[in-house]
């Protein structure tokens, strides 16, 4: 199991054990974590599953694909660590990752 912590905008933490291969969006949704709506269920059309990866963990989560890049470019929230959590698939190296959930996904 890979342990991931989602931190709500207000500071509330949700620490979840995730099996390898599951997307972080799916894990958050399964645990009803507030702030990850994921309207499109992971088909990369909605942009409502955004999370912010802290600077030191960015080498672990890797680069955005070009489509993910396009999805984030004008989403109103495009800092360097912002990712679509449906595109982050749990790997052992992710263990201990802390992800910040934005105030709003709209």
């Amino acid at each position, binding site marked *: 199991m890979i342990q991931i912590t989602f931190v709500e905008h207000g500071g509330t933490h949700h620490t979840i054990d995730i099996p390898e291969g599951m997307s972080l969006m799916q894990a958050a*949704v*399964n645990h*009803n974590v*507030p702030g990850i*709506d994921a*309207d*499109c*269920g992971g*088909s*990369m*059309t*909605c*942009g409502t599953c955004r999370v912010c990866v802290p600077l030191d963990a960015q080498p672990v989560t890797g680069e955005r694909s070009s*489509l993910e890049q*396009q*999805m984030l*470019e*004008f*989403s*109103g929230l495009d800092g360097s660590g912002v990712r679509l959590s449906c595109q982050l698939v749990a790997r052992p190296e992710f263990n201990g990752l802390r992800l910040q959930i934005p105030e709003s996904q*709209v």
Partner: protein
Amino acid sequence: MTQNNRERVVVVGAGHGGGLTVAFLRQFGYAGEITLIGEETVLPYQRPPLSKAWLKGEVSQESLALRPPAFYVDQNIDLHLGVRAERIDVQARHVVLASGQEIPYDHLVLATGAHARTLPIPGVQLSNVMTLRTLVDAEHIRSALGPGKKLIIIGGGYVGLECAATARALGVEVTVLARAPRLLERVASEPVSAFLQRFHESKGVTFRLNAVIEAILGDTRAECVLLTDGTQLSCDAVLVGVGAIPTASMAQAIGLRCDDGIVVDADCRTSDPHIFAIGDVAKRPHPLYGRELRLESVPSCMEQAKRVAACITGREPAAAEVPWFWSDQYDLKLQIAGLPFEADETVVRGNPDEAKFAVFHLRAGHIVTVEAINAPPEFFAGKKLIGSGKTVAGDKLKDSTVPLTDLAA
């Protein structure tokens, strides 16, 4: 606010909207009892993949579920699946199930969705004439598809076109019959329907527009479709995709205000203050458009589920969202935001021949709709501009060399 443990919410319809309502209630800290009643036998699931990834066999049934089975146990949600709610007793404030069981409520949420429209023509009852709304329908369709099979799709809407794309990927011969002179006549602009028609044709789909169907012929199974001009088209299966009708009969029976759906206010309340309605069945006033709309989309039912959960728990509701919708066909990603009411200018940005473009519709210099094909930046920039109501210059918008940042600033 509402932390009264004895309070009871009952949700009728365990589809997308019903499933989200119970999830948001718990997310917002609702501590009372929650009962979810659904006619389908499975847990709430996502319908969009039924015409796309699931139909193609790319994703599992498990992945369609809105929440895993353990969620309903952990969150203490009382499930009644595979059972129909028959009627509502507004005086006694309970719902009567087909089994005779009475379920009392303090707040009732109707999330009964919509059901597939059929055609008033001979032959629609034949076993291989299908519609698509549920997982059971989708299983039926999937078993009818295979290399070399001939599928006739009646209707040129999104669901029909998505099934056409999926069926082609599975090697099926596809003919789409539409009564209108163009595809997606009521829901997409002319440049988008023209582009999609060409794209589908390049993938081998045959279209017959302005087609009027006389009958579907066959003994027990459909063997051919007969048009009023005498043309006979042979087939192995027929998919009727001519839209959906809101499932409002239970609401009508108790005299709730209905008009092509259950009429609700901005808080999703019906004409009975104890009863809410959301999703495909609800017709609501939209502040961005100043009119009543019944939207059939996941984002709209998500927004309404959140709104109801906020109302019941006494939370400040979120601001109204710009309506949007998506569709996937082949490797085309369609994202549409806004509604094209009273647009007076249409601008195309990008190149349809490269299958990467966006059509913007403006009214008095404001963007009211964006239809983006393989163009997520245009979609998100457009959606933001619809929401902000900022004025943009059509000639700048049309010029792909003018960066979107200069428009969306």
